[in-house]
């Protein structure tokens, strides 16, 4: 329980008051952050040990793994749009998000009960993915609806920082348990289940389902209204900008592969790359969110996107020293801190109250499709013209995407300000 206390302490307004303007975050956002933190501890504990568990306890060949996991990603994207609209339509964001968190918690229980076959583990991973797909859009809508319009980026920053604290702690707790009880994967699953249950309990008991900006009157939105978001003069430009930026951004997984080709790592160092990026993200998410609310979300988001140029630059170097590597990872963390949450905050500001979850669901789906296109294109370019040329093409594409996104995002923001 130490970790929950610690994360609460981290968010005490007093701690931040000395350094900058007071960090005032709505209680609902902190509670949703806590839900995500606990759920991420639970999920990452399992994700960390699942490969070893399958091989070690079930005798599975590592080749089975791709098959177990890869197939469900597409399904999750479609679920996001559906759950977003459904929660707007029923005006039950909390309940729909709860269904998603509940499914993942059930998955952990199932892992204890029926996780001793490879097929069983596959089914459980699928349920977990679907649960994640269901909860994301309504949860982000709740964060948005709980926050004042001029504090959205701060709220998302706080949520994302708490979320990443959980993602960092999960593996540590899992390794800690296995250090105390070698090869006892069941103990990891039991503790993971308890974290999932705690997360769900915080959601049910402490999260307000009808926060201040939540619509209470008027007819519930129809599907046509959600579909017309694609033509909305405020939301559509944002969607186009987000698509362009996601297509021109090389995914972090590919960046790590590229770094690995360039640098002769001690293999034991490799996991530290992820850790360093995550720490950078965790440290920057809140201040960057506050900055975005103060000086404007669009410039912060664009500056964050531009940090990718540093990462691309390091990938272009023929020999990378540790200093360049650290700079690259810090920039990668900064890029994440200044883009995903800030973009969602922008969406929250331009979307009508009644269609928050629908719009955010559409945004997430479009961005994940953009990332898929980006990964396929980067892989094809790497094969055709080599890593360095592929990076140069993506750097050019990123410059174009930023040039395209700037007027679109500014227009969306202005339109939002006009109401």
């Amino acid at each position: 329980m130490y970790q929950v206390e610690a994360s609460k302490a981290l968010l005490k307004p007093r701690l931040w008051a000395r350094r900058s303007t007071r960090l005032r975050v709505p209680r609902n956002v902190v509670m949703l952050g806590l839900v995500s933190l606990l759920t991420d501890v639970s999920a990452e504990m399992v994700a960390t040990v699942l490969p070893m568990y399958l091989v070690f306890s079930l005798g599975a060949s590592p080749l089975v793994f791709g098959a177990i996991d890869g197939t469900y990603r597409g399904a999750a994207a479609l679920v996001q749009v559906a759950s977003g609209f459904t929660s707007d339509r029923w005006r039950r964001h909390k309940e729909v998000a709860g269904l998603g968190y509940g499914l993942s918690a059930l998955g952990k229980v199932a892992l204890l009960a029926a996780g001793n076959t490879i097929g069983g583990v596959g089914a459980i991973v699928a349920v977990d993915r679907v649960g994640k797909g269901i909860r994301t859009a309504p949860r982000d809508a709740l964060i948005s609806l709980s926050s004042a319009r001029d504090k959205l980026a701060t709220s998302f920053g706080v949520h994302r920082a708490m979320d990443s604290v959980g993602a960092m702690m999960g593996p540590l707790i899992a390794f800690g348990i296995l250090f105390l009880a070698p090869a006892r994967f069941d103990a990891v699953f039991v503790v993971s289940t308890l974290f999932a249950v705690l997360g769900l309990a915080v959601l049910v008991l402490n999260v307000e389902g009808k926060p201040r900006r939540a619509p209470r009157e008027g007819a519930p939105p129809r599907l046509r209204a959600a579909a017309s978001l694609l033509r909305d003069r405020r939301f559509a430009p944002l969607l186009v900008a987000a698509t362009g930026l996601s297509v021109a951004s090389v995914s972090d997984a590919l960046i790590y592969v590229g770094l690995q080709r360039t640098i002769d790592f001690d293999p034991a160092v490799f996991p530290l790359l992820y850790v360093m990026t995550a720490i950078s993200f965790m440290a920057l998410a809140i201040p960057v969110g506050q900055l975005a609310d103060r000086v404007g979300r669009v410039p912060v988001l664009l500056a964050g996107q531009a940090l990718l140029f540093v990462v691309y630059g390091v990938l272009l170097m023929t020999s990378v020293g540790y200093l360049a590597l650290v700079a690259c990872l810090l920039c990668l963390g900064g890029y994440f801190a200044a883009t995903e949450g800030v973009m969602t905050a922008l969406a929250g500001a331009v979307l009508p109250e009644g269609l928050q979850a629908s719009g955010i669901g559409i945004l997430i789906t479009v961005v994940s499709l953009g990332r898929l296109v980006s990964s396929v294109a980067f892989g094809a370019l790497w094969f055709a013209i080599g890593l360095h040329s592929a990076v140069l093409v993506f750097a050019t594409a990123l410059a174009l995407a930023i040039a395209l996104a700037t007027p679109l995002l500014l227009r969306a923001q202005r339109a939002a300000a006009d109401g």
Partner: protein
Amino acid sequence: MALVVVCVLLGGGYVVYAALGPGETTTDASPSAGRLPSETAVMVRAVDPSRPALNGGVFVVENGKVRRRSENLACERVYYAAGHGICMGVAPSGVDYTASVFGEDLVPQHSMRLTGLPSRARVSADGRYGAMTIFVSGDAYLSSPTAFSTRTYLLDMESGERIGQLEQFEVRKDGAPFDAVDFNFWGITFDPTDSDRFYATLGTGGHHYLVEGSVRRRRLQVVRDGVECPSLSPDGKRIAFKSRIDGTNRWRLHVLDLATLADHPVAEERSIDDQAEWLDADTLVYSDGINVYAVPADGGGEPSLLVRDATSPVGLRN
């Protein structure tokens, strides 16, 4: 708040319970000899068939007798040549892996942390170079952190230091540079007559290329498609390998003649996922994950059970 207390008590209690209970990473299983021809000796790693991923002891089977050779070695994968060996296995925590380099006395001299699951190990016939392949998660492109890719390292067996990683070697195919994001390498085999020269598998875009490489020049050249886990014969003229059955994860063992690049299957008809080993100029040994078998390399005869409850066979010559 009460719920938090209950969860802490339950979770803490279970971890303590688990910590006090059994949770070993090494099995006490020992192999038993099957029909081993006289004049031959094989080193194997013991396996508990019900828990094949536990580390097993290293044994030598000779003249129908099984002898445990070391109290200090427990592995998932072992290889040995000319007084130098590699032992890859799970670390005591059960989530980490280690490799150790050992000498003639089978005592570990150097060890290193592995960031993935042990897959293949080889040592050159002169004991100079070693090679290890591991499965790693987390950097497979287009897929999730639980998808796997491979990494293959070259070692200096004297110092135990890594001297190269195939992912960073320059690759050429049909005279032109060849590169792709999904390059994976596995299964090195060293030329018994020239330890600088080796073969390995390059997996990319659904193909599994046989590549020929040089340790010193850090270069690889694509030879042909459809060859996994190559293993050079003692004369360096033939390669035993896994031939994949049409896009499945099932394989037949084949032998390739390097002069003609033609290949033929051996008499083993089951799917085998192992890097075969040459017992002598005419015989292959391999494991199905539970037992070690031998089969003639020329495609005739039939498989015979060599050692029961053992994997990772190493032919001990001289």
